């Protein structure tokens, strides 16, 4: 049963990204990514990381991709992307991707072969809370500072134009 869910979610996830590569409309791209990231949230849930799954769906599929959609609205790109004539770049990119994939899979195979599989860590959100608010408290607080800095930075960068 878990395998069926895993395979369906993987197809959702990878299919969203492939559709993003093939589509030429930026708004469609963002929506495909919402689909893909929501599927990834489900996969996080399968990995027994329920809090990460919820945050993935809320923050990534929700907040960040909506931010992208708002940015696309600001660009008002009326015409879709013209089709490419140069295919060299696509072929080179795909070749590079294949080499990278072989490397990653080899590394993953070496790292995971011989490990005991299927150990359950338990869906312990309480343990995560202890980690966040005890062991990594300073990092957690500094993260809030980082978010404020990003907010102010974005306003300073893309806010109302100053008068000349």
């Amino acid at each position: 049963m878990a395998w069926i869910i895993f395979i369906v979610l993987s197809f959702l996830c990878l299919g969203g990204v492939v559709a993003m590569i093939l589509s030429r409309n930026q708004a469609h791209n963002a929506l495909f990514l919402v689909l893909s990231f929501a599927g990834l949230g489900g996969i996080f849930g399968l990995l027994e990381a329920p809090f990460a799954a919820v945050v993935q769906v809320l923050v990534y599929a929700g907040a960040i991709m909506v931010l992208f959609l708002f940015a696309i609205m600001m660009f008002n790109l009326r015409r879709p992307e013209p089709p490419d004539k140069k295919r060299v770049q696509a072929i080179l990119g795909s070749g590079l991707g294949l080499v990278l994939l072989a490397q990653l899979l080899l590394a993953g195979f070496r790292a995971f072969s011989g490990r005991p599989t299927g150990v359950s860590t338990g869906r312990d959100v309480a343990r995560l809370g202890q980690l966040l608010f005890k062991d990594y408290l300073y990092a957690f607080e500094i993260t809030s500072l980082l978010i404020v800095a990003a907010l102010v930075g974005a306003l300073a960068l893309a806010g109302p134009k100053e008068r000349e």
Partner: protein
Amino acid sequence: MIPPGAFFGLAALLFVLGVVAFFVKKDLLTQFMAVEVMLNAGNLAILALSKAAVRAEGQALVLFIITVAAAEAVIGLAIIVLVFRARKSIRTDDLKELKG
């Protein structure tokens, strides 16, 4: 029970798709989305490794990465908006002053 290696393989596939999308697409916005895909693949790999090591630290790390990614998305989009204001275009083919 699904072995963590399967999740790691999925993360590798997702990362490679992100790299390919980054190289194939020609507008800044979609390339930025491809970067987000790569970040997510990294998150998935961290979660798979943390599951294989039977530790919860990976989940805390992933939460921090998602937060930093949100900040990064905000700043990146602001920069892309600035590029669009200056050039009226976000196609990378139109931005090639540095080409020799």
